[in-house]
């Protein structure tokens, strides 16, 4: 409630200057909402900790014994934690919208800022920015773990493994791409949350989208369907950004794959935005 009052005051002060709340006011309001409750901070901490910890565990569990040919992509292995981190990112993004619906706060918000798409855009920007920041820390931690652990586990340059470090072009692409991946997952979740409005249903839908396609891909043995699933489903296509070996055999190029995820996120945001405008809050 106090945040709502603050948002009002802010709007009130801005009014004489800009004739109604502008993007900056909306951003400020959303940032205040996110900053002043403890949930998002814990979730962001969870993103960083889970991603880095799972990545480090994956590094620690993988050895390449001498004399064996190990078909392992070290960069991808070092970024395994993204698989977990994305679930926490999804919670964060879903709650940014759904918490307002569950408490009725959304009506206050829309009363203060009747331009709903402005509020929506501000939420998207704020969520994307905080996820980018947390994602960068998480990915840096994962890369650092891979850099420190993998060489002692047999993944050395002398055996043809490229270092997991940002000086190696493809590894840099995998790392930055993974940060962008998390941000796109956040936007996808935000769009679905705006569409569904209930946090339980929204998180269920997001988790289904994130994990169901890879599961189906694991079961399906038809090469044509495998190819389609690898190219067009959000997680499989999006995570090709992490590939640094066997680039010729990818179903879709790394940036192309991230583009597919961006299309999913864009479509979800668009659908969510349209419903936000049309429906009663």
């Amino acid at each position: 409630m106090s945040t709502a009052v603050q948002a009002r005051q802010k709007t009130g002060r801005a009014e004489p200057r800009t004739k109604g709340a502008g993007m900056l006011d909306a951003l400020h309001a959303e940032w205040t909402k996110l900053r002043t409750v403890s949930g998002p901070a814990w979730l962001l901490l969870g993103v960083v900790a889970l991603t880095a910890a799972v990545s480090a565990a994956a590094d620690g569990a993988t050895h390449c014994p001498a004399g064996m040919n190990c078909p392992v992509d070290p960069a991808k292995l070092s970024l395994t934690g993204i698989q977990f981190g994305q679930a926490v990112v999804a919670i964060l993004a879903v709650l940014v919208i759904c918490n307002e619906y569950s408490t009725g706060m959304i009506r206050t918000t829309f009363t203060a800022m009747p331009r709903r798409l402005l509020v929506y855009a501000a939420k998207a920007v704020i969520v994307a920015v905080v996820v980018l920041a947390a994602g960068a820390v998480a990915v840096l931690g994962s890369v650092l773990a891979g850099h420190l652990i993998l060489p002692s586990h047999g993944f050395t340059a002398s055996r043809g493994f490229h270092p997991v470090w940002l000086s190696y072009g493809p590894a840099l692409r995998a790392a930055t791409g993974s940060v962008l991946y998390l941000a796109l997952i956040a936007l996808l979740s935000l769009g679905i949350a705006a569409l569904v409005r209930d946090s339980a249903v929204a998180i269920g839908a997001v988790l289904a989208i994130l994990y169901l396609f890879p599961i189906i891909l694991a079961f399906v043995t038809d090469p044509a369907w495998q190819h389609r699933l690898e190219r067009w489903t959000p997680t499989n296509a999006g995570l090709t950004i992490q590939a640094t070996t066997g680039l010729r055999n990818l179903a879709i190029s790394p940036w192309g794959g991230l583009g597919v995820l961006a299309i999913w996120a864009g479509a979800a945001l668009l659908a969510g935005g349209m419903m936000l405008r049309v429906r009663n809050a």
Partner: protein
Amino acid sequence: MTTVSVPRAEAAAGADARRSGFGSLLRSEWTKFRTVRGWVIGMIVAAILTVLVGLFAAGGVNIGCGSSGGAAKSGKACLPYIPHGPGGEVVTDSFNFAHQPLTGNGSITVRVTSFRGEHANITGHPAQAGNGPNMAPGLMPWSKAGIIIKENLHQGSAYAAMMVTGGNGVRMQDNYTGDTAGLPGSVSAAGPRWLRLTRSGDAITGYDSADGTHWAKVGTVQLAGLPATVPAGMFATSPSYVVTQTSFGGGSSSGGPSQATGVFDHVTVSGNPAGGTWSDTPVGGGGPLSQSGPAGPAGLRGASGPAGFSHAGGAYTLTGSGDIAPVTPGPGSSLPTTTIEQSLTGAFIGLIAIVVVAAMFFTAEYRRGLIRTTLAATPQRGRVLAAKALVAGAAAFVTGLVAATVAVAVGVPLEAGKGQVVLPVPALTEIRVVVGTAALLAVAAVFAIALGAVLRRSAAAITLAVVTVVLPFLLTALHVFPSGVGAWLLRLTPAAGLAIEQSIPNYPQVTNVIDPARGGYPLPPFAGFAVLCAWAAAALALAFFLLRRRDA
């Protein structure tokens, strides 16, 4: 406020609390559950999606078989002859067999002095042409050589055998699924192994010995209806060499054939030193591999290959390739095999939907403040938790049972129509898989209820319940981790419960790959399910503790 209503509720309920307390509590929770339209729709959606995704996965089994006959073929046309064992299971039955007829009761005894093998040299890179025989020395753990008494020379017929193996010591095996350990250790000239099989009616008894003097009985098996005269003799075989590539986003496996050579002497049949004529039959194309040409599937077992059986002095040398074992799904199988649980892939989406409904069933009460009314009416908070868990679990079970039954009933014929060998299982196993899937969803619902009570936030509870079941499965199925780590994930996390869907057991005499997407889990079905139940029970206990301690 609540302090006023609690004693009143207690007083009102006091008299009949002991008689109908829990029954009426169950009824009130059931009323809550069925009157929220969204939850009922959620359960129906769970059932429909389970069936649809299951059918998609069942229809998505299609391994091309164009290479087998030159022209591309598809569907049932490309299936080779599929032997079935006496127990009805699909089996591999390919080995090189040097035999002579054994009439009536009798025995066969040999000494194995040498056992060696070689396998396709898979380096992860395509074989280079003109590289000569692309083979590396080495036995497979289940390369086999020894003596066998077999019903006839047809694939899939009954048998009993004593054998030395590449990595599992002396074994007695029968009818593809039976396996008993004998002497440990491997064979060498200095440490040979003596093997003996004795027939008495339908009973075949196996013995082993390290010196030919001191014999130990390994086991006795009954081969019902064995004819009076049966082929008996020496055999050698060696299963394919499989390498699983670990690449994220889809594990693939490559491999190649292998062959094993056993050297036998002191061969006696029915007490007579064997000077009689030995016939050499490569049962199921199980002769030695041809020495040239790149490594590839089938086709290598050429009739053009070198003779796999030779005799010099008192020593017999026999070389064979293949296996005498049940067919298991997954890499290494020479057949396009699939399992009945392939059509239950949709249980994952059903699980997500059911977990959403179950978590909401508890957290919604917190959101609306209804929890205070509920707890005022039933001050024993543990009972409320139990009633909710029971109602949601039962609803999930019924939903899952309907969905799994339909998915298997429709999906399995669909798989078979795609030219797949759907590995047959006994009716009881099929029931366990279907009912187990329903039970899996029920326990997942209880787990979600408990997490909902602990966390009081639906989003967090749902994510935790889904991720702990789905992600260990996914990371193992995609071979993100080395298989040892993946196996531990599937032993310790709630995902272990998925093992209840495994229809083909992990036979000890087959090199099993832990590949949950192909029906291979590290724990036996009910043990894995017990792990999930333990997680649900632990979450319930924590929920019970917190529910009593915390203010509602």
